[in-house]
């Protein structure tokens, strides 16, 4: 098994395990509470509106906004880590068909693995910090995934031409 292939397959399975463990932890300890919180703050907002209490309605809906922001990202992290892991594994299996040198293949594999790990990590960090750093981590991760995937597509296309 070449180094690039090993990195993608073992890294992909490890990433799938990280995504699944995170999903399991989230489902058991966090998801129900978050969903309950979302429902409560939305209801509280409109109940306050019914009582003509506009400040209380605004406060409850602000809370809803923050909870929704975190909930969407928690679910995205779980699905993106596992989805990207699957992509890493299948591309790893087919990696020897790439018409590139071993060094280039390894570079693409490192780019894809790093991107697949850091993109959802950046999204997860956004739930703790709304600043620019987590967003930059997520953008850098997704850019790495897209650039590596573009290179891999090119490698497969060249492979077909040369075969």
């Amino acid at each position: 098994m070449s180094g690039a292939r090993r990195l993608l397959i073992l890294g992909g399975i490890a990433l799938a395990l990280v995504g699944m463990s995170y999903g399991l932890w989230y489902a058991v300890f966090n998801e129900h509470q978050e969903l309950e919180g979302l429902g409560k703050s939305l209801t509280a907002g409109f109940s306050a509106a019914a009582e003509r209490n506009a400040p209380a309605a605004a406060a409850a809906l602000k809370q809803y906004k923050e909870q929704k922001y975190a909930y969407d990202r928690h679910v995205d992290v779980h699905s993106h880590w596992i989805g990207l892991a699957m992509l890493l594994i299948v591309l790893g299996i087919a990696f020897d068909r790439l018409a590139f040198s071993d060094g280039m293949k390894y570079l693409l594999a490192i780019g894809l693995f790093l991107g697949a790990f850091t993109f959802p990590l950046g999204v997860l960090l956004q739930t703790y910090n709304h600043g620019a750093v987590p967003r930059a981590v997520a953008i850098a991760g997704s850019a790495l995934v897209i650039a590596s995937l573009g290179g891999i597509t090119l490698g497969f296309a060249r492979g077909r031409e040369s075969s």
Partner: protein
Amino acid sequence: MGKTSSLSPGNLAAGAVASFAPLGARRLLLLGGVGLILAGMIFGDIFAVFVLHQNAARVGANLAAGVHAALVGDSTAVLTSFQNVGGFLENRGTKVDTHVHMIDFGYLALMLAILQPWIALSEISKKRVAWVFLFGSGLLPVCVFLIHYVGLAYSPLQAIGWASILADLGGLLVLLAMLAYLLGLLRRATAKEERGAQDALLTDRGSEGRWMLAGGVLLALFGFLHGAYYASVDLYRHEAMDSSILSEMAAGAAASDTADVERSFREYGQLQGDKAVQIAAHAHLIEFGLLAIMLAFFQPYVALREAWKRRWAGVLLLGSALLPVCVLLELRYGLVAGGLADLGGLLVIISLIAMCIGILRYTGELDAPSGAAR
């Protein structure tokens, strides 16, 4: 049936026959994986046609009722309406989760089937782990589906019911099976003596396999590009609009401004529709891309004529592109685009059934001479 797969039993090496033995890990995972994907897709189609739109209408009606109750100052009716919205959303959420998890576990099963020659475990261990994986993969989506119906009946916990507990157990079983296969892979990767995993599946370069591999990578790439575009242009705007429209709705209700509430409510519905189609197109592009890549490897196991293998590969790719593109066009062209998207999904299902029949023919051809089929 004329000319069939290049990996027909007549020219199969003994090792290749052994790698696809009856009730062996690879065969269990391949057939189980295709079965899970098919079941998940058919469930998704049934859900989309018979549940999704009706459920969305009920959510909308109850949300409207809640907002109008706030408008007339009836806080008891607000509470009832929003409780109903929560119930309908939970119903929808668990059905979407059932659909997604069934298909994703099917994908994982296909990947593990491809990886079997690289996993340094005994055949019996591989088979047992495959059964654990498939049991967990079936248990989780079935129990997630039941969450809405079982609720908290006889549950020892205050917030989590038996269906959730068993679904989590299913997830744990899948996790343990994945861990076992990872250990097997690590054992091979760290072995002092590198034994080359000879596998005809990885060396086959039939035209249908090449089409599916290239088409699959392209679909996944478009999916990522679309996701990046959505995240950079629409995601934060949509999130800001979601909260600002709800705030306007509540403020309008508090001020008894019916026109303002009605306008906000219409905008909120449009926003939810826009978000849903963008996310669905992104997810389906990548998932169908992955499916095409994985099925590309299994083409040697599809015992159909070469021409038919190419046709089914084309149908799969056509359906995989048609569905997400038409989903994106749904807001502009309505039911016409929706119908075409459903047709795309149907094409994927039909081609998957055809390939599954080809794989079953192959297992029959393989088992018949050895008497394993009896």
